[in-house]
């Protein structure tokens, strides 16, 4: 960490001499410490999956969800600081509502991602604030089909066919690249998503985790909902089985 002690990392409003903003890079570190979140875009829908690290056995199962609903047809998953994720999802809902008020139609995901990008970027400009310590996966299915975006702490956002953020993103990306995403059915994508989360989870270093999965597609009437219980259980069982053959 060459940045430490130079003084250029004390504020998001100060560049380092070689043109970097260290506070943003630190924010990326916060994301890297978090459980992995992935998103898959297939022909007729999207699947989001999160490896929610459980730091205490006393926690209520399924509490502190990291996948949230922004609009009927928009999903959001975060990796990084949980509270920042909450703040951003609330902002996303406001933006979606505002879009509907203005245009009387459901917001396209690009518009929401664009506005969230602007919002996140504003937190890289001032010495009085800290950048968001999260990377955010956004997914939707609308009249133009499925779409997937990732918003990073710097405020940039990109569209993806498969996305991975958080601790295990490298391995997850490798696995996603192996898949023929456009040819997968949504149900197959759910199985793959569960498999990847189980695969990237490092039980040597980490404690328990809880798998969280949601989807948007024809079976959910293009609404964002949890993956149905039976499919979820099937995917989780297959993921555990795959893990054993993998090792």
């Amino acid at each position, binding site marked *: 960490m060459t940045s430490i002690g130079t003084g250029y990392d004390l504020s998001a409003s100060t560049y380092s001499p070689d043109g970097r903003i260290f506070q943003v890079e630190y924010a990326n570190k916060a994301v890297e410490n978090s459980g992995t979140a992935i998103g898959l875009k297939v022909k007729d829908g999207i699947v989001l999956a999160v490896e929610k690290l459980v730091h205490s056995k006393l926690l209520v199962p399924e509490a502190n*969800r990291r996948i*949230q*609903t*922004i*609009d*009927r047809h928009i999903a959001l998953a975060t990796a990084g600081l949980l509270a920042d994720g909450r703040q951003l999802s609330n902002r996303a*809902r406001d933006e*979606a*509502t505002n879009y*509907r*008020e203005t245009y*009387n139609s459901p917001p396209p995901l690009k518009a929401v991602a664009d506005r969230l990008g602007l919002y996140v970027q504003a937190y890289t400009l001032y010495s009085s604030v800290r950048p968001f310590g999260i990377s955010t996966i956004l997914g939707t299915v609308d009249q133009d089909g499925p779409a997937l975006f990732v918003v990073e702490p710097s405020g940039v956002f990109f569209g993806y066919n498969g996305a991975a953020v958080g601790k295990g993103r490298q391995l997850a990306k490798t696995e996603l690249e192996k898949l023929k995403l456009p040819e997968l059915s949504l149900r197959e994508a759910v199985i793959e998503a569960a498999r990847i989360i189980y695969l990237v989870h490092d039980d040597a270093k980490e404690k328990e985790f809880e798998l969280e999965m949601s989807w948007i597609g024809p079976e959910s009437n293009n*609404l964002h909902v949890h993956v149905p219980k039976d499919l979820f259980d099937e995917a989780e069982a297959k993921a555990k089985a795959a893990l054993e053959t993998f090792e």
Partner: protein
Amino acid sequence: MDHFPTNWGRPRNDAFDAYGTYPIHQRPQNGPKDAFSAGVQRTQQPIVTGTSVIAIKYKDGIMMAADNLASYGSLARFKDVQRLHPVGDNTVIGAGGDMSDFQYIQTLLNELDIEEYTAQDGHSLGPAEIHEYLSQVMYARRSKINPLWNSLLVGGVKNGTRFLAYVDLLGTTYSASTLATGYGAHIAQPLLRTAVEGFEDVLTEEQALKIIENSMKVLFYRDARSLNKYQVATITKDGVNISESKHLETSWSFAEGIRGYGAQTQ
């Protein structure tokens, strides 16, 4: 209840154009003249209006009906307007009165529904909650002397309980096993009460539909601001269904034989 939406919320005054023969915005003024009228903000008035909504309880749930007409004064202006609106999975609202205010109410409810959906907390809004919400909105707007010029019926079934209630531009609310707004409160309500009161738990869907059809037919014969094209909503434990537009079979041949008033001399 007065069946001219223009008169809703105003003191009863027989001197006002009782037959509604003027376009709504230029009705005669018989009241005292306000010398400062130019500087006073006008209270709003309904412009494009819908007439009666009727609804009953029956064995399996709620049945509601409204025709497809939106009038501009005495002009039958829009003849393909849906005045029954589903909210969530268990509720339908039906609106009489100003149609632009009703559209605004629809956007309010859509926003509310999304807010509830995105919370993903296992709760959903049923007819009782939606009626309470609308009551608060309607009462708050009347208290700002800027009312939403509607009378609304809210019907639905949730957790095995039937719900049917009314709310209007004054924030007045009530519940009963038969309800009707506008002209229907005079013409249809007595028919509905006779057919339904005491039979709420035994009437079948077919019987309920007969009762509704009959009332819509009587309303079409008697209400000059009505249309023979209407929709029926049924809300049961299986959810909401709003029918395609139906046409009423009516016969007017009897009018030929009527003598004693009108243009004919013999």
